[in-house]
């Protein structure tokens, strides 16, 4: 028994082995969060060094989450806390480590959002906020975060000047349109460079691949690979594949595990789809790569539950808003190597999912006003816009 558990613990490949994986599962110290459960048996993903301590763990957190935080203009980046002038604050709350606030394997203190979050996280540094903002006097220490006004990391849709700019947005904007994706330059190749049945050739000819000069060998490679993986897609769609591997559909592959299947999910899934191993072609069926199908039909092929049933009856469905419009949004992507930016689909669903305020700018504001979006996502009236309106009025009066 000890030998079996020991092999599970010390042999990383046991995470992907049907025989040895139960040994690893037995050693889990507690139920993992829904963000990590898919890779919970790849212990090394987080516990990268057995004797590396908290810093090794921190490195692992940053390995997966640092880019997203940077993109979000993280309001509280690590470098803010390494400044010696904040040494007294660090002694109270070590904000240089993610695990100070977010601990894993502790279901008793894990929130619905999928992580632990101390209620007093703002208090230690901002206890005197009412001196600067009298409107905040008397507010509970937990309300900064819970009232829907501020977030620790991502405040792109919540900062004062942005709220002020959108004070009078109507609930539904006159122009409601998603940003257009910018596709690579078109160089058509109308002749396939491999033998294929007519249906496959027809599908291929109708796709952007044929128009962009991507022939059969462009995906199937040389020597011929019968079923290309995301590695082939990455040649042209690197940011999309990066997002896929960072999100719920591809994170198991990124962790060196067998691909995700709906049967492994904690969310409600269709039983008949349970065995499907997820890759790029699970949603973008070859050889047609129909993005419209991938935007909704592909999702409901696996997902089920009240959210999907409600969607079918919603104004969103009636107006052409797909699952992807909200959960795989079109975002601005910056290629720092080339120094360019373009619009593409973010394939990491988590990046715009929780906390829900992350969805406001890349998703909701394409069709809805800011106030409506904040309230709709919070499920109640949030006071932040009214407070900014009052502040602007007070400022205006003081000028006169």
């Amino acid at each position, binding site marked *: 028994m000890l030998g079996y558990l020991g092999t599970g613990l010390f042999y990383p490949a046991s995470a992907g082995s049907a025989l040895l994986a139960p040994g690893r599962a037995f050693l889990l110290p507690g139920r993992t969060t829904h963000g990590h459960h898919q890779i919970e048996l790849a212990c090394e993903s987080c516990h990268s060094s057995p004797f590396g301590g908290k810093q090794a763990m921190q490195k692992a957190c940053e390995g997966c989450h640092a880019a997203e935080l940077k993109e979000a203009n993280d309001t509280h*980046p690590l470098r803010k806390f390494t400044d*010696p*002038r904040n*040494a007294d604050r660090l*002694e109270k709350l070590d904000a240089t480590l993610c695990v100070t606030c977010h601990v894993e394997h502790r279901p008793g203190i894990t929130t619905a959002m999928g992580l632990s979050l101390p209620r007093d996280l703002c208090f230690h540094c901002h206890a005197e906020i009412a001196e600067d903002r009298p409107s905040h006097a008397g507010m509970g220490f937990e309300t900064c975060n819970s009232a829907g006004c501020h977030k620790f990391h991502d405040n792109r849709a919540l900062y004062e000047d942005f709220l002020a700019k959108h004070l009078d947005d109507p609930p539904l904007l006159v122009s409601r349109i998603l940003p257009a994706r910018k596709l690579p330059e078109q160089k058509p190749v109308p002749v396939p460079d491999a033998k294929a049945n007519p249906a496959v050739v027809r599908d291929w000819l109708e796709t952007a691949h044929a128009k962009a000069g991507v022939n059969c060998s462009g995906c199937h490679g040389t020597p011929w690979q019968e079923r290309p993986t995301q590695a082939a897609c990455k040649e042209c769609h690197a940011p999309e594949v990066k997002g896929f591997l960072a999100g719920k559909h591809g994170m198991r592959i990124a962790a060196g595990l067998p691909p995700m299947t709906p049967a492994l999910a904690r969310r409600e899934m269709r039983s008949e789809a349970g065995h499907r191993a997820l890759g790029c072609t699970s949603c973008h069926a070859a050889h047609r790569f129909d993005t419209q199908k991938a935007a909704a039909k592909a999702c409901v092929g696996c997902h089920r539950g009240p959210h999907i049933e409600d969607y079918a009856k919603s104004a969103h469905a009636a107006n052409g808003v797909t699952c992807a419009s909200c959960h795989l949004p079109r975002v601005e992507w910056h290629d720092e190597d080339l120094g360019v930016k373009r619009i593409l689909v973010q394939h990491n669903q988590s990046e715009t999912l929780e906390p829900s305020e992350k969805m406001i700018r890349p998703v909701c504001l394409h069709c809805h006003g800011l106030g409506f979006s904040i309230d709709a996502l919070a499920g109640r009236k949030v006071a932040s816009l009214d407070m900014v309106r009052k502040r602007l009025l007070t400022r205006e009066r003081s000028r006169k």
Partner: protein
Amino acid sequence: MKNILIGGLLLGASVQAHCQVSYKEMADALHAVMESDRTVYTRMVVNRLQNEEKVIKASEHFKDERALPLPAQMFRFGSEMVAEKKMGFSYALLSMWPINKQNAPKTAAEKEGLEAVAKDPAKAFYKEETLGRVKYYTAVYADRAVSPACVSCHNEHKDTPKKDFKLGQTMGGVVIRIPMK
């Protein structure tokens, strides 16, 4: 004054493998680079393009507004990048009249230093202080309004506690900290 060993090239002095440099000399040299770069960006980029040529604005929300970062942000981003490189020393732009209250003086040395350079901008302030059980050599230098853009932006900002800055006046200070061996 204790000396520290640093690469001679850093000070642009004679090219030698190593040389002995005091904490004060090190801080002064670092500040000379910071102040020069800061002045160049403020005068030759922001003031020229925003105030004189009126080609592009500088804004606190430069990404959202497709504008230039403010000189103070430019300085701060540099400071943050240095912090990420873990070079040992750190620097910050602070003020007794900060727009962001987090940039008000916090330690005794910062308060004393900012007051000193406000009174006599030509003279830097030096002090040793202990923060988080680490002893630092702390130097504070006056940060002056080097162009009309500094004055107009600060005086008109909605969160400014002071609305009568004048060109050439001290608006705050650059605080450099070097951990002492």
